[in-house]
């Protein structure tokens, strides 16, 4: 849009591609000012009746009347944006193969569990024009420390791991010495014969 109307609405040239994905995003204050003023100009040019109406820009959960003037929009906790509905054509019903547990217990109970540690969309656009994501666990408000990150558990594991390595190394060495002794004596006995 910015390219097509750039000559008629030069302010649009201020809108650039911040994320480098080939699509310009309207996310910085000067870009928001540019889109609002250009749209207002376009509507005026096309004789659209703006009486009692205001051109605004909605970004994430904010309604901008200018680049620096905005108000917060109400949204549900699970929504990244009030206008980015989570309800898709599938009516939010995932196929069975994507259901939690379909790939085993580790869907949740693992360090790589996507359910807890996967990144989910917080806002469609950030300062850099890229989506803003957070850990699902943070979104769900889980504050408990995972077991393997608890210092007591961590040091218990360290203690036992080193104990196992040291003890087994000692035992194996002792056994090898025993076997070596046996064959040395056997050889000595044969040589004596």
């Amino acid at each position, binding site marked *: 849009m910015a390219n097509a109307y750039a000559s008629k609405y030069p302010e649009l040239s201020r809108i650039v591609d911040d994320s480098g994905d080939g699509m310009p995003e309207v996310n910085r204050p000067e870009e928001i000012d540019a889109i609002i003023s250009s749209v207002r100009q376009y509507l005026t040019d096309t004789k659209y009746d703006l009486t009692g109406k205001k051109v605004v820009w909605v970004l994430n959960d904010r309604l901008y009347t200018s680049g620096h003037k905005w108000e917060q929009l109400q949204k549900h906790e699970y929504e990244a944006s009030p206008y980015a509905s989570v309800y898709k054509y599938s009516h939010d019903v995932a196929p069975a193969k994507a259901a939690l547990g379909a*790939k*085993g*217990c*580790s869907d949740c*109970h*693992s360090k790589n569990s996507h359910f807890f540690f996967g990144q989910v969309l917080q806002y469609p656009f950030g300062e850099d024009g890229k989506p803003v994501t957070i850990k699902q666990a943070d979104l769900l408000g889980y504050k408990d420390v995972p*077991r393997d990150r*608890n210092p*007591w*558990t961590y040091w*218990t*594991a360290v203690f*036992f*791991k080193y*104990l*196992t390595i040291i*003890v*087994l190394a000692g*035992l*194996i060495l*002792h*056994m090898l*010495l*025993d*076997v*070596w*002794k*046996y*064959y*040395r004596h056997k050889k000595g006995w044969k040589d004596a014969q």
Partner: protein
Amino acid sequence: MRNSPEGQSTMRFNIYFRMQHILMFVGVIALVVTGIPLWCLRYPDSFALTSVIDIFRGLDSIRIWHHWAGWMLTFAFAYHLLYVFLHPEGRRDLLLMMPRKKDFQDLYHNILYCTGKRNTPPQFGRFSYFEKFDYWAAFWGCIIMIGTGLIMMYPHKVAESMPGGWGSTVFAVALESHFHEAILATLALLIWHMFNVHVKPEKFPGSLTWLNGKITAEERQKEHPLEDGEIKKYRAFKGL
């Protein structure tokens, strides 16, 4: 130490001690077999895990078997504690089983002997240093495994007796200790104990001492030459 009817063998372990050993190894083998799939829960996607769970007809079933095997080990350990505190031979063996300076000297001596730096092997009493290690490793293992196992079986009761917030930490530490000590105990038993009583060239394929309690005079002279002297000293100490 009693003479056997054959006159060639002597009684090394009495029936009580042999019973404890049998109870313990049956319990431990059952614990290892049923513990492997539970241990593998940390790797839930492994094929081995799902196959073993299927054999046992589900995880809950494995847990029940594992708990029963755990009770068997607990019984064997309790039986052993009663034996070493109440039975005269048990009290004697516990005292002779205590680590001493000589054990470390014997270890050093044995290393020199194995590497050809000394011509004669160390002479042991009733228990050699590696038998003592075996015993105390099993003793430590029982305390850790039974203790942490009980915490995991009754987490709510443990949490109720803990100051606020410590219940989950104690449970997590118990789980971690149980998980790691299981590996250490299993590998030590499979590698060390099996080697010393079955695989070791001088021992292969093993003796029946665990079953009949007897040891031949030749074995006794070779492996425990200082035993008689040690027992005499103990009897003198006890005024027997």
